């Protein structure tokens, strides 16, 4: 079963972290990726640029309109995700708990099962 483990970040929370804390998060993600790859559960991960860099595109009367994002008026934004292939939902939840973000107040890790995929990456 494939699951998308998404990381919902709050830029204000991240900014308030010390350099050591930020480094620990980076190392935690590094270890998480290495473990996940070794177990044969890792498919893909991507991290996104800061939400302030987002553009919102809409089409009105057939004309595209581009405005500065982000679209949602929220404190938390999608920061990145892991795509994993695991035995069951319990294992996906177990993996999610190993992501450093899960231990930080104000950040969130969300787990959802994949329903459809196309364009498999040749890794």
């Amino acid at each position, binding site marked *: 079963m494939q699951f998308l483990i998404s990381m919902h970040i709050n830029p204000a929370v991240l900014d308030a972290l010390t350099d050591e804390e930020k480094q620990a998060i980076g190392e935690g993600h590094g270890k998480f990726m290495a473990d996940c790859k070794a177990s044969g559960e890792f498919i893909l991960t991507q991290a996104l640029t800061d939400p302030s860099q987002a553009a919102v595109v809409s089409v009105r009367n057939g004309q595209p309109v581009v405005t500065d994002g982000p679209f949602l008026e929220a404190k938390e934004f999608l920061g990145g995700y892991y795509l994993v*292939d695991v035995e069951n939902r319990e294992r996906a939840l177990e993996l999610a708990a190993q992501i450093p973000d899960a231990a930080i107040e104000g950040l969130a890790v969300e787990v959802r099962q994949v*329903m459809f995929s196309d364009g498999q990456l040749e890794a």
Partner: protein
Amino acid sequence: MSESADRRPEFEDLLRELAPQVLGALVRRHGQFESCEDAVQEAVLAASVQWPAEGVPDNPRGWLVAVASRRLIDQMRSDHARRERESALATEQAAEPAPEDVPGGDDTLVLLFLCCHPTLTAASQTALTLRAVGGLTTAEIARAFLVPEATMAARISRAKQKIKAAGSAFAMPEGAERDERLRVVLHVLYLIFNEGYIASSGGELSRADLAREAIRLVRIVHAQLPGDGEVTGLLALMLLTHARRDARTTASGDLVPLDEQDRSAWDRDMIDEGNALVKTSLADTTLGPYQLQAAIAATHAGATRAADTNWKQVYALYLVLERIAPNPMVTLNRAIALAEVEGPEAGLGLLATLDGDERMAGHHRLLSVRAHLLEKTGDTSGAYELYRRAAKATASLAEQRYLERRASRLKE
């Protein structure tokens, strides 16, 4: 996908049949399951490049043993050999057959037991079985399970490390352990079949190649253990289920439920073979879950029209199945049969007993079956709500489309 499988070149079938025999011969001679397995995989890859171009050698098995042995020795000599395998393999020459090489279906069975080692996760057991016993390449297995090749390669490598760490001998387990391990093997083959029959997630409903592969592997086990009722039962169950493959989806990929399937599209040969196996397996002194499920499938296969289904028999079989292998899914299926025999209210009553079961809470099957039975009682608004909830709960796109259609039908 079954069409492409039918057109599969002959040499591929031969390769898949020989791969576990060659692996068995190598492990018997050199030990080291994990290195031998790599060497055989490389020999199989070499054959798939060379045989179509140069023809199948006179002694294909001896050729594979010789090439795999040479790869194994190369590997032992140098770690670099592995990285250079593709260029080196392209120039491999056909080799002399190894004299001490003996064919052995027994080895295939021993390999199956090893690949389905209880310390492995089901995902690892299935992957390793398909590679070491099925003779599939890592790339093929990765494609079948919709993951990148690197993911599958890591999974197989981890599985082999675990087997090595467990210190398993290359020998048939004995006594009670043998029976226990055989159940695991059958379960793994059942999982491979299911993965092929209905994708656990995703839009592609059927990946017939995996189902065919599972049937091929169970046939190997059945040939070795013809007297085991559960092996026979599993083979029968797979054949009777696979016989419906063409009828269970429309041309556009929509799911067709059993009672609406065009039964003339069912594969009669497969059903006949399955029926004969069910008869044999039911003569076994001990009844197991696969035998009972096969008997249920045979009952459905025996009805020319859905309306002719012997639901009393289906109900009785589910009752026995529930006794020997209690499981909420079995209870759910018994409720469907009960509704056919005594009416939808009786079925709903039985479903109510599952409400406290954590394993079924919010499960799409419980929601959809209840919706179906409510629809039969005439409670269309209740059925509508439940079909909609079931559609949200399923991880299968085909099933979701089907449930949404059922819901829309009630609004018309």
